[in-house]
């Protein structure tokens, strides 16, 4: 009964999404203000229906209802409750439902937060969101219904893919999707502005907090995915430039550009059409990511249940939504001219460089991700693009970006006079260089060319970012949350740069064959193998190896990497053992049984690797802090005194 109720709720949600889109967009276009009052009702109704569908599917998972195909394929009665809930988004149909649910949550939040905006404008925003939701609901109902029954019912389920049975991965999709879906709000704001044919500075101020929050979630989501790849897959890396990883990274890069371009539009009324384009692009790349992952067009380690039928549907949806938005853009953007100018060396020019470099970075990732597809489509043979392409091309746009960051945050708006900041910049740069080179050659005593460069750039960003806030704080001046958030996010980026530099330069990696009692030394540590013993979990059996780790004789840890065999899916996974010790990350993975008690063991020592994920978390915190600034909460709508009016309708 519950699956049917959920299915019915989804159909009602589809109808309500259609009503929401129609009344909002048509009502605003024709000036029927009474139609607009129906919009918020439709938003609320749709949210209730989607939540009902979500609850029904969750109840089927919790109650082990294996008469539901999706549950039978992705769960099992031996699966712990936590993973039975997480199994809801363990495959395609449920992830789509999660996507729709999160879109409903964002829409309700926007409806709530947009009460202070002009009614027609907020209606148009909700209308565009309704259109997006309608597309996804139609997609789910037409091609990927999670509520289909299995007749006869399965006695037990096929179990959740063991790789997904990890706390990190259970929370990774909801957080990542919250970020993805969040960019639909910026997209809806952009479309609403284009439909209205006007875009003023208060528009940017409304859009900024939504975009920054979505970006923060995306940052966390990507970091969690990377952490999981490192920790659970035991592949010994944190980033593989896999198509699915790239699919989440491209919206992140463009979203980062959007945040900065929105700041210029907000403060100076510039970059209007560019900001609109970035808002469209960020959401388009989120949709494209879904397309690439779901359609089976690209083969990736992540892809499951690929289906060209679904691919065709998503492609049609992409053409309607993105094509429509870009048509609107071609029509309306020429009207949005900015009259204000700025000098080279003004903050605007640095933010322009930031945007250009970030978009180039996203473009190179895009080209590398789609190259295999294009070469296949043109029958040029199978092409595989990997780190040898991505690492140098990405670095080429990132190095100037990082170098310009420290200067850019000290530049003034409008005027290019950097003279009065020269001394601060020079001192911080020298301090960073001395500190960076000192650390590299003092602690590690060797390094590649890029090692001191990366360390210096990272430290320079930290010092240059912190100088002004510390100065203001010491003089007892107030600091806005927006500035504080920006500083925190930039420091997060710098921490990531330092961590990446260190990891790339100083990782030790060895595969060794160990007999019980044998000792091996690697990266300044000693590892003594004490043999293996069987272990058991709720739905798997395992072999656990025991290794005593010491550092110059002093005990560090006893690590027990496991090889797990899940009973139902009969899949073997490697559970790595990880120990943080004085900033070093020691990772052990159990390999093959070599016979006579000997096992192959992979030893990796990665200095500072956990700082990468911490850095992402710092960046996300900075984003949330900035979004909570009072300035964004009390945006005056019709305030003739503000500069907003001066530039609006300037065309």
């Amino acid at each position, binding site marked *: 009964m519950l699956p049917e109720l959920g299915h019915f709720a989804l159909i009602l949600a589809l109808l309500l999404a259609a009503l929401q889109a129609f009344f909002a967009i048509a009502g605003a276009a024709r000036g029927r203000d009474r139609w607009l009052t129906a919009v918020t009702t439709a938003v609320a109704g749709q949210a209730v229906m989607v939540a009902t569908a979500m609850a029904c599917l969750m109840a089927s998972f919790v109650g082990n209802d294996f008469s539901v195909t999706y549950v039978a394929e992705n769960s099992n009665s031996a699966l712990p409750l936590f993973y039975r809930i997480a199994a809801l988004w363990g495959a395609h149909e449920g992830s789509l439902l999660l996507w729709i649910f999160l879109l409903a949550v964002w829409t309700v939040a926007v409806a709530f937060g947009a009460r202070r905006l002009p009614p027609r404008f907020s209606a148009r925003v909700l209308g565009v969101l309704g259109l997006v939701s309608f597309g996804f609901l139609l997609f789910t109902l037409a091609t990927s219904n999670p509520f289909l029954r299995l007749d006869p019912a399965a006695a037990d389920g096929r179990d959740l893919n063991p790789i997904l049975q990890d706390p990190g991965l259970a929370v990774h999709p909801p957080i990542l999707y919250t970020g993805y879906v969040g960019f639909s709000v910026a997209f809806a704001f952009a479309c609403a502005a284009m439909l209205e044919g006007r875009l003023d500075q208060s528009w940017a101020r409304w859009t900024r907090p939504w975009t920054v929050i979505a970006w923060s979630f995306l940052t966390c989501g990507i970091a969690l995915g990377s952490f999981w790849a490192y920790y659970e897959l035991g592949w010994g890396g944190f980033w593989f430039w896999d198509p699915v990883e790239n699919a989440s990274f491209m919206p992140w890069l463009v979203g980062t550009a959007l945040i900065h371009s929105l700041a210029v539009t907000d403060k100076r009324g510039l970059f209007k059409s560019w900001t609109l384009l970035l808002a469209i692009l960020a959401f388009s790349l989120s949709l494209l990511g879904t397309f690439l992952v779901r359609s089976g067009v690209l*083969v990736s380690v992540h892809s*499951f249940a690929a289906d*060209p039928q679904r691919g065709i549907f998503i492609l049609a949806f992409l053409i309607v939504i993105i094509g429509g938005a870009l048509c609107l*853009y071609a029509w309306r953007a020429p009207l949005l001219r900015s009259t204000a100018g700025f000098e080279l060396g003004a903050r605007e020019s640095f933010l322009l460089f930031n945007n250009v470099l970030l978009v180039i970075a996203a473009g190179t990732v895009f080209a590398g991700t789609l190259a295999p*597809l294009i070469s*296949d*489509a043109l029958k040029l043979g199978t092409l595989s693009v990997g780190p040898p392409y991505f690492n140098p091309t990405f670095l080429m746009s990132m190095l100037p970006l990082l170098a310009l960051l420290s200067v850019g945050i000290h530049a003034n708006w409008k005027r290019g006079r950097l003279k009065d900041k020269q001394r601060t910049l020079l001192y911080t740069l020298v301090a960073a260089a001395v500190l960076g080179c000192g650390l590299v050659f003092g602690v590690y005593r060797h390094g590649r060319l890029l090692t001191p460069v990366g360390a210096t750039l990272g430290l320079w960003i930290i010092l240059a970012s912190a100088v002004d806030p510390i100065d203001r704080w010491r003089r007892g001046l107030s600091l806005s949350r927006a500035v504080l958030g920006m500083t925190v996010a930039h420091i997060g980026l710098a921490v990531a740069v330092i961590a990446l530099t260190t990891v790339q330069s100083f990782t030790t990696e060895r595969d060794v064959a160990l007999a019980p009692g044998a000792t091996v030394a690697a990266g300044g540590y000693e590892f003594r193998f004490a043999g293996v013993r069987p272990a058991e979990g709720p739905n798997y059996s395992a072999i656990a190896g025991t290794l005593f780790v010491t550092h110059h004789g002093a005990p560090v840890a006893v690590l027990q990497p496991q090889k797990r065999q899940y009973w139902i899916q009969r899949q073997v996974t490697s559970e790595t053992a990880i120990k943080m010790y004085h900033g070093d990350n020691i990772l052990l993975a159990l390999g093959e049984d070599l016979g006579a008690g000997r096992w192959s063991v992979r030893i990796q020592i990665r200095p500072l690797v956990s700082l990468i994920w911490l850095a992402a978390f710092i960046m996300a915190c900075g984003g949330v802090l900035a979004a909570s600034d009072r300035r964004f909460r009390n945006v005056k709508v019709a305030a003739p005194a503000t500069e907003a009016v001066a530039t609006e309708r300037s065309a």
Partner: protein
Amino acid sequence: MNRFLLPLGAFLLLAVVLAIGIRHAPDKGVIASPLLGRPAPQFALPDLTQPARLVRSVDLKGHWYLFNVWGTWCGECRAEHETLLRVQRAGLVPLIGLDWKDDASEARAWLAQFGNPYQAVAVDASGRVAIDWGVYGAPETFLVDPRGIVVYKHVGALTDAVWSQEILPRVGAARPGKS
């Protein structure tokens, strides 16, 4: 004005590429397997019915075969068994079984009770060969061509429809006149 049309043009170009990409995408219901179009993994495992003999992938080269992963512990495998028997009676493509992580005596009893559709059954007690084949869950069926290339993969119970619509056309198209 013109430069504002550029993004639209670029997007439409991309849409065309993606549309071509879909046409080349693997078939419906397929878990995208990196094995498709690549040589089948090598194996040499004891035969279920004659443990002294080995079932070896090298001996299978030169003709089509269906590689069917099963186990007595797998409920869906019982569901596809009738189809497997019909495939055997059709006599067009031999079935090679992979008895995956199973008790050999139970597997022999299963074949004695329900009928044996296989030309040979390889016993994969450790599950190592199944990992090489990228098996996700039983049953799974792979179609391998005479050159030893995996051309098709079916996840879940094999049905008559899959046999007649997906597997037969591939085998038939590759050797015209010998349906």
